[in-house]
């Protein structure tokens, strides 16, 4: 920890223009292209787009290097002071004793950290491939199917590749045993070893369509739900029907005797008494835990990636909103006067907007990316925190320690960030979980309405929409329901415990 803080201290001694160039590079090649703003001015590669990209990048880097970074440094100091204070330590210890909230915190933190390793666990790409003795790490790099001895173009289907390798290995073993081995077979045995595909634990991706691998039409039921699958096979007409209903079965089930033969066959099929036609292989029981959605994509994979995106989005939006809210609230509270009155009016005006509808209007028109949607939500979400910070600053700036700091000649910046801010951060901590709940909810609702993240992004709200459109396919609606409910419940448990630990209200009891 001390190494980290020493490193941070060293970084902060560097001159600001270094930060400017670093930010310029980041903004020019990542942030501005990611927001997709330049593409609205002209096609990629055109003069206007390049001009806008460069101008935005320079603006972002300038503001970042001379305003945001120093500000972030000061806020970091304030938080370090706040988090290092004995009062905070005591409150944190109290938080850890509130079991419900603390365990919720640990669960959410664990799941969130684990979700960053989701590519290694849930992915349609293989982790590594050994082909003719050479290892290829294919998780993040693109590889052609031809490089691995498959036919066809584009990315290989690694699940098929593994089957192919296993089959080839069997054939090779047979050839070796029969003594008709080729030169290549000998090299495989002596030099390369058998070809290998190391797949992730759950080898299906969130965006990959499984239409060609699963029988029937999507949405497919969860693979362990055999009754629903039998209904699918029946609808497709994939059962081998006997010539007449078997007499011994009818003797067992007196209720079936009045039925037409076709109905008897259907009843038999749904009970699993009929064989499938040859050539149709049913999926393994735990192949797709939550089935597939209406485009044949694995729901479980989409849920997991959707969790990471939702939580990241909520964290980013909450962070930016709070950073803006803290800065503006601090300035309002500290300087007061005309500045305060004018900006207060502005905040009032801004917060009187019909939030959801305005966001819907903007994002329906601009088809937002992750960055742009976060920016839009931040634009309308920062006002809440200003009120609290402003009130805290108004109260704190009348205290003696502020007067003392001023008397020894501290600058305004030092007073705001080093002296007052560490004492004004309690509402930030205690409202943050509820803001996160709100932002997750906002993203899911926008996605549900179709004004959220662009189409193939795995999102819970989009699954909700599919669930509503396919009410007879309950796994589509229930999966995001359970996930959203669980996440929000855990986060609000954290919020309750934090509030209890940080902002204790002692109520008198009647008895």
């Amino acid at each position, binding site marked *: 920890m001390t190494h980290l803080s020493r490193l941070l201290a060293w970084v902060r001694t560097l001159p600001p223009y270094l930060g400017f160039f670093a930010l310029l590079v980041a903004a020019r090649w990542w942030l501005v292209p990611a927001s997709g703003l330049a593409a609205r001015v002209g096609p990629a590669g055109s003069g206007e787009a390049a001009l806008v990209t460069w101008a935005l990048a320079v603006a972002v880097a300038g503001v970042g290097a001379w305003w945001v970074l120093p500000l972030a440094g000061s806020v970091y100091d304030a938080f370090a002071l706040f988090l290092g204070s004995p009062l905070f330590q005591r409150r944190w210890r109290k938080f850890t004793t509130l079991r419900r909230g603390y365990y919720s915190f640990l669960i959410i933190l664990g799941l969130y950290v684990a979700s960053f390793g989701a590519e290694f666990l849930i992915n349609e790409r293989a982790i590594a491939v050994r082909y003719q003795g050479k290892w290829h790490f294919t998780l993040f790099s693109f590889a052609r199917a031809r490089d691995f001895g498959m036919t066809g173009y584009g990315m290989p289907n690694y699940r098929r590749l593994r089957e192919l390798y296993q089959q080839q290995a069997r054939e090779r073993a047979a050839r070796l045993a029969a003594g008709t081995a080729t030169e290549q077979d000998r090299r495989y045995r002596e030099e390369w070893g058998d070809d290998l595909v190391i797949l992730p634990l759950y080898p299906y991706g969130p965006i990959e369509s499984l239409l060609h691998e699963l029988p029937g039409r999507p949405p497919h039921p969860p693979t362990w739900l055999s009754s629903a699958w039998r209904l699918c096979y029946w609808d497709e007409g994939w059962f081998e029907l006997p010539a007449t209903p078997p007499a011994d079965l009818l003797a067992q089930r007196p209720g079936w005797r009045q039925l037409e033969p076709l109905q008897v066959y259907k009843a038999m099929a749904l009970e699993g008494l009929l064989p499938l036609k040859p050539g149709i292989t049913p999926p393994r029981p735990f192949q797709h835990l939550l089935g597939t959605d209406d485009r044949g994509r694995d729901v479980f994979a989409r849920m997991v990636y959707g969790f990471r995106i939702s939580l990241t989005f909520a964290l980013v939006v909450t962070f930016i909103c709070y950073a803006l809210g803290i800065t503006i609230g601090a300035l309002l509270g500290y300087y007061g006067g005309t500045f305060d009155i004018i900006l207060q009016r502005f905040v009032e*005006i801004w917060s009187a907007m019909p939030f959801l509808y305005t966001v819907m209007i903007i994002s329906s028109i601009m088809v937002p990316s992750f960055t742009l949607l976060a920016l839009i939500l931040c634009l309308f979400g920062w006002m809440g925190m200003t009120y609290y910070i402003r009130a805290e600053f108004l109260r704190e700036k009348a205290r003696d320690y502020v007067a003392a700091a001023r008397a020894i000649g501290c600058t305004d910046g030092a007073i705001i960030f080093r002296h007052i801010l560490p004492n004004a951060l309690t509402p930030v901590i205690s409202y943050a979980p509820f803001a996160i709940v709100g932002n997750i909810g906002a993203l899911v*609702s926008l996605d549900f309405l179709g004004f959220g993240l662009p189409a193939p992004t795995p999102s819970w709200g989009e699954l909700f929409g599919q669930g509503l459109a396919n009410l007879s396919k*309950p796994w589509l609606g229930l999966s995001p329901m359970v996930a959203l409910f669980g996440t929000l419940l855990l986060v609000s448990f954290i919020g309750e415990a934090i509030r209890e630990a940080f902002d204790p209200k002692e109520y008198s009891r009647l008895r």
Partner: protein
Amino acid sequence: MTTYFLQRFLLMIPTFIGITFLCFTVTRFVPGGPVEQAVLRYQQLQALTGEGGAGDAGGSSATDGGPVISEETMQKLRAIYGFDKPFYLAYLSWLGRVVQLDLGTSDTFARPVWDVIRDSLPVSLWFGLTGFILSYTICIPLGVWKAVKHGSAFDTATSVLVFIAYSIPGWSAGILLLLLFGGGSFWSVFPLGGVSSAQIGPDSYLAGFLLEGARVEDIPDDERAKHPQLRPGQFINSRHPAFAAVPPAKRQRLTRGSSDDLSWFGQVLDRIWHMILPVFCYVLGMFASKTVLMKNSLMENLGQDYVRTAFAKGLSERTVIFKHALRNSLIPIATGLGHMLSLVLAGSYLIEKVFNIHGFGYLGYTALVARDYPVTLGILVIASSLKLLGNIFADMLYCAIDPRIRFS
């Protein structure tokens, strides 16, 4: 005080202008607006009728995907949709018309925006108000009881309930309820949405409330001539003016129909049947915050000195809580009434979308999807003015209820 509220009313004007200007500007500067859509429709029409197809029009039009539209036509199109002026002038003329309560004509409905909105408002109000009143009648007693029994098993149990309600957004609970009770995969108890039944079959719950009716063929010819819109094979119900002329022997109880064919009581039942799930969602959305607010407010008051004094002079617990403390703790709840209208209207995009209720929020959603900017902006005008008025109204209520509050 009067000057304060006068100031607030005057401050509404810049706010209103700011909101509408932002959204108006956004609608102006993005591709895919009404002019482009009209051009696209025109091109599709041309392609369908085969006039000036892409094949013989040369290379330039083939890249555009359709025949070229002359500059004159484009100018006319722009003028129709008001895109011929720069955006600030267009905004000013739009604002001038809004001030005269003219919101323009909808692009998709081809009717005045004002009429379209007026049709949808009562539906939203009906659902929203019922939900609002129900949530107050549930949350206030529950909050009071939780405060009185603070720390008891009842308090803990209902706290868990409050947490669960807080963690389920109302609209997603609607999807869950439709999944469970809409007949898709589990039980078929409630309708899938809408405001009233479009079809009532013989096996419906409401079949017993269908009116008497008659076949159109059984109406005497001279009476039938007065109603040319009736087709053979249809049924009329006893509310129809032609029904009186039908001979009693030909009258029969209807076996199928829509909600119009229900008796008065049946229509009420039908309405309630359609309202249960959406209203539950409305209540769920407000349940957690209102209950906690009520509880905390009463707890706050129970700790005050005047409550101790009241206890000390020997008043019963019932009198102290319900006559002294409760009155004061209702103040923050009552001010919520000020936001009622905007909450009822603005908070319902999602629930109305889920339950397919063609109300205000649903209209806003469909207008956005169809890029119907006059309706979109009209709804924005109404929603934002309601929100602004609601804020002021809440403060006025606050002043009226609590004489200690002085705004200046």
